[in-house]
């Protein structure tokens, strides 16, 4: 029994010995062994952080369907060249520098002319698909792009709705939260929408507005905010 008591006391004693003491035990404040004391002056560490880079081919493949949702058949919307997913085209993937893990294992993630050109191609195609899908959905809440407007709305007929939709698209594509009532931040996009809608040679108001939203969508998808992080 005495031995048991003694053994029980040992860990308690050890804990007591290592516990922080309220009266400033010097050995703890100054560190022990070769560790620098806690009041050591700053050590200058030279290093680099990852600088902004463009989306990789794989990231594009993954993010475009998320940004644009599903088409009328329920299939994820992605950039298509003809009937096929463009980013699965070996020529496009190769030209974008996607590694094949035979000759190359790294993808250069600096912007290039080719990347910008392909994003323009992608934007024109995928924005059209997104708007086509939205046109089949009567419930705005189900739409990926036209969440706060009716299909034929213009700045003149529904300025608040257009601005709300522009704010929504900024958040969706650029992860930029524009405050409700902040008209200035979305003014350039509003002007783009309005200019293109009015210049459209279409006669159907929905088609005119569609061209405006298409231009907005292309501008957002080809912007640095979408492509760089």
């Amino acid at each position, binding site marked *: 029994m005495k031995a048991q008591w003694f053994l029980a006391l040992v860990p308690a004693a050890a804990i007591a010995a290592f516990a922080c003491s309220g009266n400033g035990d010097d050995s703890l404040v100054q560190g022990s062994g070769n*560790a620098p004391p806690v009041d050591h002056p700053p050590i200058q560490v030279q*290093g680099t952080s990852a600088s902004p880079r463009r989306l990789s081919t794989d990231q594009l493949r993954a993010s475009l369907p998320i940004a644009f949702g599903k088409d009328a058949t329920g299939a994820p919307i992605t950039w298509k060249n003809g009937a096929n997913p463009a980013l699965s085209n070996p020529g496009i993937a190769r030209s974008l520098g996607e590694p094949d893990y035979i000759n190359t294992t790294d993808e250069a993630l600096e912007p290039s002319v080719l990347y910008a050109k392909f994003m323009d191609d992608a934007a024109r195609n995928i924005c059209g698909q997104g708007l086509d899908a939205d046109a089949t959905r009567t419930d705005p809440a189900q739409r990926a792009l036209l969440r706060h407007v009716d299909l034929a709305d213009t700045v003149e007929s529904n300025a608040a709705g257009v601005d709300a939709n522009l704010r929504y698209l900024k958040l969706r594509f650029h992860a930029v939260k524009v405050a409700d009532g902040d008209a200035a931040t979305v003014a350039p996009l509003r002007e783009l929408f309005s*200019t293109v809608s009015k210049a*459209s040679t279409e006669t159907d108001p929905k088609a005119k507005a569609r061209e405006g939203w298409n231009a907005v969508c292309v501008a957002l998808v080809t912007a640095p*905010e979408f492509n760089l992080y």
Partner: protein
Amino acid sequence: MNFSRRNFLQVMGIAGGVVALREFAGRVPMAHADPGASPGLFLLCYMRGGWDQLLALDPRDNTDPRFSEANARKTGGSGIMPAYGMVTEAATKTLLASNPSGVQRAGNLSFGPAVPTTLMDHAADLAILRGVSMETLTHEVGRRYFTTGKFPRGLAASGSSITTLVANAGGPTPLLPNLAVSTESYNEGLPSFASPTSVNSTADLQLVLKPLGKALDPKSADAIEAFQAKSDTCENHELDQNNVVTTFRELTKKSHSVAKSNAASLFQFSLTSPPAEVKTLFDALGISTAADLAGPRGRAAIAAQALAKGISQAVSVELADDLDDHDSWDTDHAPKIRTAMDALGRLITVLKNTPHKDGGSVWSKTTLLLFSDFARTPLVNTRNGRDHHLASSALVAGPKIRGNQVVGATADQLMGAQLINPGTGKVDAGGVKMRPADIHATLLTSMGIAIDPIRNQNPTVISALLK
């Protein structure tokens, strides 16, 4: 060692500093010896798999008793067996009927029996480099060594391709400054405009040069471009470290120029009713079938258009795709050498016949390097093949390169690389090995491009090659 927090932070600091220094050094465009001068055009031609230089750039007299099979194989023998008589290719047989040595001469150059006259006709401009020490028998290593001039890190390429260095020196003006046709090409730390555009075919080039999908209404397109030009958001500023946003916007603007240019039509390589210019190119390169278009001649045509039409500053192109004949060398190798070198010869002719906007011909502004992974053994193995051999050869040319000469040599026993005097190009027992790094340094120097990127290879400029 007593590893402490202080030690750890010091080590990380040094490591971080090295990384920072390397990053900084890599971001600065390489100095051009004469910033106002263009480096000219560059053509890098690759023959994949390791060539038999006995059939091509480093022949031996097939009638020389030293090189008979018996004398080649005996102990202390030459170890070199041209074996031209084993080659089944008709063109080689025809040549040997009138020239049993198999060695063809043009000017001061000698070529093996598989080299066609279409290439030999340019002997006055060409310099053959023999006895190039490859220091590897691994395909990827040899290929990447000769592509960048730096010995690879394991299998991974080290440094930027020479085409990338030239494209960087030339600036971003061309539509596709650095075009890689079925070849590897690398950019390590240089501006993105110098990065290679990799294509395998004209179909790939059409993807690159033509807008894909439905075009926007011109007014929409103009409005979007105006929006992009004026866009100035907080997020742009936040992201614009190292000017990456500024660069992206400039590149976006340039991509519109690419799309609006008619460059895609230059590569409309259709065999049925090609555009007139393309037809002329096809005739010059001997392209009349789908197989021609898909093969070395077709790839040579892409290279020719890219250089001749000012699309690219530097082009790398694969002219042979499977030379690794460990067996069936006797039936397979010579035709592939001939086809590749014929494509090159015709390509040079096209460039000679194309005027350059600055006067002279496009060829007069072009520097050339032709290489393979390494060479093949001078003895034929038991499967009628040849294996890998360290001492290789190369072909160079350029406005500042002295043609019609052979620099370096391999020995007449075992065909090892010999040391050379870089000032004379002749064998010199007290001289230096000639390596891909030295060839790169020489070509870069001839183009007025600083050799800083390969300086850690301690290269020697072979001044015998320079005009």
